[in-house]
């Protein structure tokens, strides 16, 4: 078996990438929590491993002379391309879910993308028979067809869409989110550059470092979240204030909820408070979230619903005083958004 140095280094890099990602999958308890987000993250990890396997396999077969090696290379290349396209598609869904935390939002917005992806996946799967996407010439060199270039364009468009989603989220929702795609994108970009300017393929290695970086970046944000409830802790306020100061969030109103019987009432509170709100648990029995003036009807409705839930709780638990109080605090005319937030720290 002949493997030249370029192939050997690429295989080495691909297997290193597999070791890195498999270790993350085995050791991280967080990505085995069986919620939709962790399932998407786990899928991304598996697709990176598949992509690296495809890349290593195709490089191993590239300089071999027996006839079956050309077929094996075609198989590995197909495997790699199928994984790569799926990876970009799942990454796009993952970014959307990180921002909106809604499966419905994904179903509403990504039906057409799903159809396009499925079309190209089918084309890739039947490619070894039809050669509709790419073929290998007499020296086993890769020869793409126009349809393959179209698929590449779609992949680039999906990646661009993730940037657009992130930009659009801030613009439309005027809301803070901790999710950043740069930890994933920068190593991939460096991997692409290395592949471009050297004789080796380093994209799977870039992907693996990217996914590790993304995981570490996510772990950092957990310090703002309370385990179990999904509420934010007080440290979130200082982060919110810093970001409001730098990119100008325009919070006009703070809703404060004070409860005496916090432990018994927590379940009702989680049920009644809108899911898309960042609820900050300031201290025992004190909750807070920020909104703008246009949402005052929502606040009134929330107040009524919480009062009803409190009354029902008191009826069911005789002698218990929930002591619920819902207050709205408005921003002063000349007060900046970050100063307004600092008032509650």
């Amino acid at each position, binding site marked *: 078996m002949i493997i030249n*140095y370029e192939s*050997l*280094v690429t295989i*080495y*890099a691909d297997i*290193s990438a597999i*070791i*890195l990602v498999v*270790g*993350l999958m*085995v*050791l*991280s*308890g*967080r990505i085995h929590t069986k919620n939709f987000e962790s399932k998407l993250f786990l899928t991304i990890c598996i697709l990176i491993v598949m992509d690296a396997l495809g890349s290593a396999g195709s490089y191993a077969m590239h300089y071999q002379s027996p006839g079956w090696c050309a077929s094996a290379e075609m198989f590995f290349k197909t495997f790699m391309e199928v994984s790569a396209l799926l990876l970009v598609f799942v990454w796009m869904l993952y970014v959307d879910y990180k921002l909106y935390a809604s499966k419905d939002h994904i179903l509403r917005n990504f039906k057409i993308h799903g159809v396009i992806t499925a079309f190209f996946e089918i084309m890739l799967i039947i490619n070894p028979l039809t050669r509709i996407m790419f073929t290998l010439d007499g020296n086993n060199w890769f020869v793409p067809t126009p349809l393959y270039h179209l698929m590449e364009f779609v992949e680039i468009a999906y990646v661009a869409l993730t940037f657009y989603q992130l930009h659009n989220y801030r613009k439309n929702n005027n809301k803070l989110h901790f999710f950043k795609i740069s*930890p994933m994108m920068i*190593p991939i970009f*460096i991997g692409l550059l*290395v592949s471009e*300017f*050297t*004789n*080796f393929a*380093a994209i799977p*290695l870039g992907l693996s*470092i990217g996914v*590790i*970086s993304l*995981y*570490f*970046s996510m*772990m*950092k944000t*957990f*310090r703002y*979240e309370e385990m179990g409830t999904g509420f934010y*802790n007080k440290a979130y306020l200082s982060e919110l204030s810093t970001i409001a100061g730098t990119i100008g969030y325009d919070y006009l109103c703070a809703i404060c909820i004070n409860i005496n019987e916090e432990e018994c009432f927590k379940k009702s509170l989680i049920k009644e408070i809108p899911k898309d709100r960042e609820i900050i648990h300031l201290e025992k029995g004190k909750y807070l979230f920020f909104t703008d003036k246009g949402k005052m009807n929502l606040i009134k409705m929330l107040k009524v619903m919480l009062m009803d839930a409190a009354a029902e709780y008191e009826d069911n638990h005789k002698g218990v005083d929930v002591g619920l109080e819902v207050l709205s605090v408005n921003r002063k005319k000349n007060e900046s958004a970050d100063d307004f937030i600092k008032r509650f720290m």
Partner: protein
Amino acid sequence: MTFNNLLNISDLNQGTIMMNFAAILLLAVIMVHTNMFRKRGFLTDKLFFALIIIDMVIAVTDSINYTLYFSSFNLADEVINVSDHLFCLAVELFMMFFLFYLASIKSEGENLKRKFILYSIPMIIETICIIVNIFTKFMLYIDENNNYVETKYYVIIYLGVAVYGFLAAFELYRISKGLLVVLIAVVLIVPLWIVLTPDISSTAFYYGIILTYSHICMMNMEFYGEVTK
């Protein structure tokens, strides 16, 4: 003109340089994402930071060596000589600090001090050997073609790493059996790599993988959970 042509690097050394570059990227990622932990000022966090820096030194010195092997550059042999000795020292130092890091997770006070003193002994012996080698060239030297040559006594370096690895396995057994199993799997793969790919050196990358795994594992422990408060 490609990157390799630009630096006139020997064809057989480009893979090592790429893997070291990947190691530096991985270490930079770990460094950026652990800044929050370092702010706590715990001994464990300081040791982890030291491990990142030492591994970066390994990656840089290894890259310098592989860039200059077979080079016609005038001062190449002197630079490789310094860089090679630094590399050997850093490889040992990494293992010692990794052991200190593991020991500091569950031990403290006098017990920890005793462990640190005990664990420093192999490092002191290795350092003496490396210093003696500068004058006697009994372990490794650079020949007239600027090629790196290891003698049979170079096994001392591997022995030092093995001793620290063995002690680290004991410490890990107390801390996280899951991490121990995964690291043993990695350690078993590495010798296979060395045999199959003698022209590619990726010590820094594999040390980077050990740091990544350790960080993932420790972040999920109650000990690291304190940072969320």
